[in-house]
């Protein structure tokens, strides 16, 4: 599954575009991310699926555009 990362998350991961295997939902995504990138522990972020914020645990389709979004700071 392809993932997009933004802001401080992209900085910690070292990429704004990367992939992870065997992700069935947003909870397992977060778990896997923590295993692979322990520095994410201290960061807040939300997950969007096809440009909509995922509320609660959301099943992920391999074709969905999934993104990791730290707190917004536009303006």
């Amino acid at each position, binding site marked *: 599954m392809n993932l997009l990362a*933004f802001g401080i998350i992209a900085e910690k991961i070292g990429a704004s575009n990367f992939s992870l295997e065997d992700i069935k939902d947003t909870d397992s995504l977060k778990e896997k991310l923590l295993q692979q990138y322990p520095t994410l522990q201290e960061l807040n972020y939300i997950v*969007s699926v096809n440009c909509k914020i995922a509320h609660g645990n959301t099943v992920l389709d391999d074709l969905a555009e999934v*993104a990791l979004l730290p707190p917004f700071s536009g*303006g």
Partner: protein
Amino acid sequence: MKHSPKNIFVHGAITPTKIAESIQHHSAKTDIGAHSIFLGQVRADELEGGMVIAIDYTAYEQMALEKMQEIREDIFAKYTLTCAHVYHSLGEVKVGELCLFVFTSSKHRKIAIDACEEMVERIKKELPIWGKEILENNSTSWKNNI
């Protein structure tokens, strides 16, 4: 039918000339009585690592434009506006330069003013945009709107 979202992003700072042109374009709309404008300017904040000299903006553009379209539709449903325009910078904007331009127009002042303020609040809170503050010693710090 769903409209394709309007672009709001401009590369680099928003210039006063662009703002003047935008105001000028509304002189033909003779049912307008009031305009309300909000401008965000990059501030020389003093952080632990030193003075902020610029902010580098990035966005999840597609999501931001879709969300902005939703905000725009909500605002037009709630307020009787003649028009509303939003521009946000991407890339580097130096201290003293403008990074956000929100512009609402209506027959009456109260409507234009309230709609502008609500748009600004929602833009800051809901658009996936990130500002990375660049300090004088070239270190960086991710901006926090809270």
